[in-house]
């Protein structure tokens, strides 16, 4: 018996070492350990043995069984490892990957989206309003005198029916304050129109972002905060902002806002005309006259507003020399902004 088992073990050993794939392993396993195997039939013979002999015999069978199982497992692992090794092949890693043909946004959109995100993260909402406006919202409600030169045909586009193309996004201030009670905290990006001939720094169609905050206790200090936070987020934390006195009919005090030159960091260069500062737009505290026109209690509420020119920011940020380039829609220009978000 001992010999027969030895023989079987050696035979199995040889066969297992010849296995070359998982299927071979299964077959060999079935042959030596399966229901119809010799080993299995030997187990069946146990019942014919004396009770004293059974444990020793069973032990022998179990040993052979576990030896075969062991060999099968080792071989199965070896086969797997060999197949993993064969997967490794040489590649030319310098060959190009599959190109993904993503397009890109217009630089003005890129800037607008970025401004949206900065202000949304500061808790502002985005308001929208029409481009075609009436004189009340574009001029009267913004405290612009009837004889103000900006109302001229030479400055403002008028359309049929007594309407005009808004000259500034400040119209949104009026639209929002007409429809919502304070507190208000909005920005409104959009198109504006002025009767300027296209040249390197003018375009009859251009884009602004308006901001308006109205609440109890809003002060010029909050305007400073917002502008500085905006400048730092948009242009980097080294950039400083400042406001200096100016005049707008709808703000009091009125200001123009500057940021420190992003090119020379304020040292003075060609871009900032040696001043160290770049003009960003108009700002100020909402004129009480505007509140009065809209029926908001100017004793209770105060507010600030400002408007930024998107073209100017884009031209500064991307070093674009001529505003007209932005409206040519030349793919050779557009492709340059493919990598911008």
């Amino acid at each position: 018996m001992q010999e027969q088992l030895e023989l079987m073990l050696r035979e199995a050993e040889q066969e297992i070492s010849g296995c070359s794939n998982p299927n071979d392993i299964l077959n060999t396993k079935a042959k030596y350990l399966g229901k119809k195997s010799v080993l299995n039939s030997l187990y069946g013979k146990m019942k014919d043995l004396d009770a004293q002999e059974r444990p020793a015999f069973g032990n022998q069978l179990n040993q052979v069984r576990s030896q075969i199982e062991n060999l099968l497992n080792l071989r199965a692992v070896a086969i797997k490892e060999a197949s993993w090794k064969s997967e490794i092949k040489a590649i030319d890693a310098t060959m190009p990957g599959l190109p993904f043909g993503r397009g890109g946004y217009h630089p003005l959109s890129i800037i607008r989206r970025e401004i949206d995100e900065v202000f949304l993260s500061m808790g502002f909402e985005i308001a929208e309003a029409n481009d075609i406006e009436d004189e009340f919202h574009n001029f009267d409600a913004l405290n612009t005198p009837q004889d103000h030169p900006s109302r001229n045909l030479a400055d403002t586009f008028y359309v049929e029916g007594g309407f005009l193309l808004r000259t500034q996004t400040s119209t949104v201030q009026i639209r929002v304050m007409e429809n919502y009670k304070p507190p208000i905290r909005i920005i409104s990006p959009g198109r504006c129109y002025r009767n300027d001939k296209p040249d390197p720094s003018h375009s009859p169609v251009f884009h602004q972002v308006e901001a308006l905050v109205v609440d109890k206790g809003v002060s010029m200090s909050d305007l400073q905060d917002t502008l500085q936070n905006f400048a730092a987020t948009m242009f980097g934390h080294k950039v400083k902002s400042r406001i200096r006195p100016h005049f707008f009919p709808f703000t009091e005090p009125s200001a123009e806002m500057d940021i420190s030159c992003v090119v020379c960091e304020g040292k003075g260069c060609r871009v900032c005309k040696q001043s160290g500062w770049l003009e960003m737009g108009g700002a100020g505290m909402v004129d009480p006259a505007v509140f009065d026109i809209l029926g908001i209690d100017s004793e209770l509420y105060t507010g600030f507003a400002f408007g930024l020119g998107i073209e100017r920011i884009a031209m500064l940020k991307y070093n674009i020399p001529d505003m007209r380039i932005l409206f040519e829609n030349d793919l050779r220009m557009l492709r340059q902004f493919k990598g911008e978000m």
Partner: protein
Amino acid sequence: MRIALSWLKRYLPLAGHEAKLADLLTFAGIEVEGIEKLQALGATVIAARVISAEPVPKTDHLKLCLVDIGDTEYPEKDADNRIQVICGAPNCEAGMMAVLALPGTALKDITIAKAKIRGIHSHGMLCSERELGLSENHAGIIHLPPDTPVGVLADRLFALPDTIFELEITPNRSDLLGYKGIARDLSARLNVPTIEPEVQDLSAPLSTLQLGLFNEEPTLCPRYTARVFEGVKIQDSPLWMKTALIKSGLRPINNIVDITNFVMLECGHPLHAFDYDALASRDGATGHPDIVVRRAADKEAFLALDGKNHELCIQDLVIADGKHPSALAGVMGSKDSGINPETKNIVLESAAFHPGTIRKTSYDHKISSDSSYRFERHLSPRYAREISERATALILDLGGVKAMGNLLDSYPSEDQEIILGVRPSRFKLLIGMEIDPAQMKDILQKLGFAYIQDAAHQPGLVADLNQLAPAVTAEQVAQYYRVPGYRKDVTREADILEELARLIGYDKVPQRTVLQQVMDRHAYRIQKKAAEWIVAWGAYETLNYSFTDPAQMQSLGLKEEDQPYIHLINPQSSNQSVMRVSLVPQLLTNLAYNINHAERDVKLFELGKVYLKNAKGHTEPKHMGAICTGAINEEHYKNKLQAVDFAWAKGCFEGLLQHLGLSPQAQACSIPYLAEGEAFAYELDGKHLGCFGRIQSPVLEAWGIDATNLKQEVWLLLWDIDALASATRSLSVTFVNIPKHPAVVRDLSFLLSDAYTYGQVRQQIVGLEPALVRDVQVFDEYRSKQIPEGFRSLSLHIVLQDQEKTLTDERVDALMTSVQKTLSEKYNITMR
């Protein structure tokens, strides 16, 4: 922690507040995890005496009981007020007082009816605690005290109806771990004074039994009190106490153990009782037992009350007798020193322990008890004596005591008192509302904070009241309070401010800024997603002026008669003299410009407003238009070049709709500038969503593009972004369970006449068994010389899946056969 309303009312009059009690607790910062209503049982559940209880023949456990129901009305009782009831409880015995539910009673789980069991009539049921809804205990029927009058209502015996609140006490609030603490907190909120339990007589003859007390760990055990009671009679507690314990989730054991538990639930401070005679002496010479508070020896053995053996270590604090640990301090007593029916004399412990050591011992030995739960949350040693006295009064009342010893009290260093300054100005700053100093004082005094008159001004912890500088500004003005010992969580000004806010109510804290919902966030997202989509498909964004050339719009067939233009009064030139009604003319201009600059693969889009005049004035909806031609991919060795065509345009157009959750079908349409038969529009509920199609060559020529030379198709895609925003505004995904059964994919290849469309074939397949056909995909289409003129070969994957079960081959085969048969009959297909 389980709190019974009936018990809580002993310490706080709650009339008028019961309905809102859950809200009151919640806003006091005590989370109500569950509310259990114990129903009234009514007139048919009564105390009854079991006169006799005889085994029912041929059953192993049923007993036939003769029950005296006294004056209680029941039509079938005999002249002696008796009825017969079958009972299966093992503890049912003659002479006992039981709770009987007469037929007709609706209990929590069953309605009692007259029944016939083994041929014997049974008029009702003797009840267990579970059957009455008092607890989960169903080991046997309730034994009422023998002196309970027959016929008294169970509702009166068990204070029913009642409400049980399951409370979650936050770990900082050890003062809320008992009924009185909860009552105190609610009292401050409700502005109703609490009711103190009556002071009971503490006089008893002085016992001659001696006890030694040695506190060797004053840091871990800041206070230990012990008192000996002599000649105690161990018996059941009265029913009112048992009921109170049961409703709070504890099992009554005997009068002494019940009293310690009762006082623990009442005061939130655990007590322990030892069998005096089981305690050994430290030094045999004294002849009396000792209590030694010490650390356990390394590997010292301890057999706990729950029957488990524990091996202690030096970190464990034990209450030992002269030789062995009698308790793991504050966690659990030993088995041998506990109160048992034979106990004659007892020692009552009321102590305070260091919370850290209790937590560690409880964790290390995996023993969690009502006692450890409370001690590890930090209880002050200040109240050990009054707690002990409360229990003493109850023991004298209910324990049949012969004599008692004096209180032994080890209290080496008094609990440090905390004085805090709190500024009304600081409350305004932190909470955002004014507080009247008088209101502040009122609230804090109700919570047990003692106001100190005329103290000077300094916020926060005060070391020495005499050293304070006077307040210079209004902001510095503070009030000073002694923090009650049970508020171990209040150590800083901020903690007091929290108390004030909590009591005033977080719901009273004003919301300062209410932003108007000015922004249409949904429309904003749709616009953003649309632009991202078309950029991902390779298009570059253009921006064009809002005004354009009326002649160009006319030439595209966008006639002013159909959609009036808005004219500028002072245009810069005639070709910029009207507001655009479509994005298409300028996109064509952009295309021509780039093609004329030697670009061949051009995909451009604009997302912007058009300006539409109408009867009421005008609107400015947003559109997104894309004009695309040429290669859709870069040439690459793994990917052959493909051009913009119908399939690309349809995929891109419909893809965005699907991306937004919409899936309307294309409709053939006629648009002047698009090629006949190659223009498709999409609608949803009658609203136009957009269209796509191929730009006609004459249009290209009109824009200066040599269409013949270009040799590529130009496709236009136009989405109405505002319409997409409104169509998707109320859409949302509803999750459907992931199918448990695998999908089966079968392929079908056939020749189809050009007289029929793929859409017709697809609809037919899906229609055959809509519940089974998950998807149909075209994976091949071709024509060749081998295929007859006017036919094409189509190959489809048909994906089948059953939500309910795994599909069998037979089922799939049958379906495929019927698919083939139907397609042959309807569309004359030839299988390949």
